């Protein structure tokens, strides 16, 4: 028998999609049964009370978590999101309901053994509820009490060789697409770079020292499977420099219907026979492709590397061989001064271990932003306030046509004094000699 009636939540057990309510109820039941005989370190009815407080929120349409919460483990300034229920008498099981962030493996590959070990620990010292994974990438452990934090951290680090993720005004947990592990589009080893950067910048991740949060994300090609361009202050996106590799025989197989376009991604509907002209040539954003006499040609000088043709005919077209990455910076959500996608900073940079070229850019930007950034100002906002040129200067880079989508339309152009003959010191009397008042 459930501890709290949940008529509203019960409705979410119907329908075909996996129901979080059904899962929560199974979790609650399992805690009561406790078949492994665990000495549960937080209330047995934590999940019942979570359902109860959620039902109450459904009923009155408002949250029942208190504002904020500052808890953590010694040595770190982040990693745990403290949370307290605002009805602790009614729902004592979730009076404390802190979230712990665990740094996930790049690409989210696991073994059952590892996940089971983590689950054993979390069942014992936490609620048993998780979020796989948080938007930034962390394994998220939902709900434990303050006294358990150091206990869990000790066990994680000593037994499982597993660290916490980031939170606060620091480097958040980096994330990547699954890259070369199982994608023929990958232009660099996104997982390796993600792991390398995570290890290199541990201090920035665990001890907040920035004006505000800062995120890395690594996409191995412009398809953006980890959405680096939209969800990271420093977005690394794989690309190539030379020609797209064409296999004409495979092109013929697409035209002949032996290979399904987009690897069969649109098989759920009849779109007619594959038409290379309509679906590839005419859709190329730069119009740099042609298909004549059964031969596909690409004017690679005019190619944006948008991925469309490669996405449509993955067995016939491949990224070039001279691979690397672009760096884009400044993406952020709307608060405070509006949403931003990242802006192109470095069109092409080598992306091979030990990634020194990219790290140099990172560290130049940090030096600048840590000094100039205002309290709680994202990098994208610092760029807006001080200007893109200032960031180029900080990185020691020359401006390039590729830095803009279009040149400015307003004429409010600043010049440096030393660029202007005669400088800024002028004598009005001198001017009056030629121009009467």
């Amino acid at each position, binding site marked *: 028998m459930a501890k709290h009636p949940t008529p509203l939540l019960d409705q979410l057990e119907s329908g075909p999609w996996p129901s979080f309510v059904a899962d929560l109820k199974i979790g609650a039941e399992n805690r009561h049964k406790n078949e492994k005989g665990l000495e549960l370190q937080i209330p047995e009815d934590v999940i019942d009370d979570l359902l109860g407080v959620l039902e109450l929120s459904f009923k009155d349409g408002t949250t029942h978590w208190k504002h904020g919460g*500052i808890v953590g483990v010694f040595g770190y300034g982040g990693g745990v999101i403290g949370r307290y229920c605002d009805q602790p008498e009614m729902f004592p099981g979730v009076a404390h309901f802190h979230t712990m962030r665990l740094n996930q493996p790049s690409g989210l590959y696991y073994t059952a053994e590892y996940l089971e070990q983590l689950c054993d620990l979390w069942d014992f010292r936490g609620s048993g509820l998780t979020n796989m994974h948080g938007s930034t990438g962390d394994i998220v452990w939902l709900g434990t009490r303050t006294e358990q934090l150091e206990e869990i951290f000790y066990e994680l680090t000593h037994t499982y060789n597993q660290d916490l993720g980031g939170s*606060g005004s620091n480097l958040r947990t980096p994330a990547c697409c699954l890259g070369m592990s199982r994608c023929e589009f990958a232009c660099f080893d996104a997982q390796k770079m993600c792991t390398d950067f995570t290890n290199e910048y541990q201090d920035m991740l665990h001890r907040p*020292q920035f004006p505000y949060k800062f995120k890395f994300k690594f996409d191995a090609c412009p398809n953006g499977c980890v959405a680096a361009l939209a969800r990271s202050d420093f977005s690394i996106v794989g690309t190539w420099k030379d020609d797209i590799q064409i296999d004409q025989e495979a092109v013929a197989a697409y035209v002949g219907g032996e290979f399904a376009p987009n690897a069969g991604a649109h098989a759920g509907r009849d779109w007619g026979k594959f038409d290379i002209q309509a679906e590839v040539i005419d859709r190329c954003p730069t119009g740099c492709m042609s298909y004549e006499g059964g031969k596909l040609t690409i004017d690679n000088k005019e190619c944006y590397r948008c991925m469309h043709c490669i996405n449509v005919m993955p067995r016939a077209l491949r990224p070039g061989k001279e691979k690397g990455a672009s760096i884009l910076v400044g993406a952020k959500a709307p608060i405070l001064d509006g949403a931003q996608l990242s802006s192109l900073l470095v069109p092409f940079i080598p992306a091979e271990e030990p990634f020194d070229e990219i790290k140099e850019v990172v560290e130049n930007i940090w030096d600048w932003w840590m000094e100039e950034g205002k309290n709680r100002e994202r990098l994208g906002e610092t760029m807006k306030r001080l200007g893109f040129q200032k960031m180029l200067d900080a990185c020691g880079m020359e401006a390039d046509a590729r830095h803009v989508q279009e040149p400015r339309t307003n004429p409010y152009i600043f010049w440096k004094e030393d660029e202007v003959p005669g400088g800024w010191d002028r004598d009005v009397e001198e001017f009056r000699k030629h121009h009467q008042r």
Partner: protein
Amino acid sequence: MPSVEFQGKNFDIDEDGFLQRFEDWCPEWVDYVKDSEGIKDLTDEHNKVIEFLQDYYKKNGIAPMVRILSKVTGYKLKHIYELFPSGPGKGACKMAGLPKPTGCV
């Protein structure tokens, strides 16, 4: 609102052990908090950090950014963590009696 008594003084605190009112701060508070913040003995360096945080808060109404705390005290972040194991926010600000840090922490 929970309250604690220590060496004859009463302190109103929140769940995270932060003082509810900055005006309630007194040297006994520091003595009371230090154990739970992993600090054995208070040194002049601890006091320097605490005093600066309080001065800054009184003048500006907010806690200083980490960078400013480092610059003024001359202590690198690493050293601040050596002094206050749970860091400048949870450790030093709590001991100095400043309000609990907020935002996306």
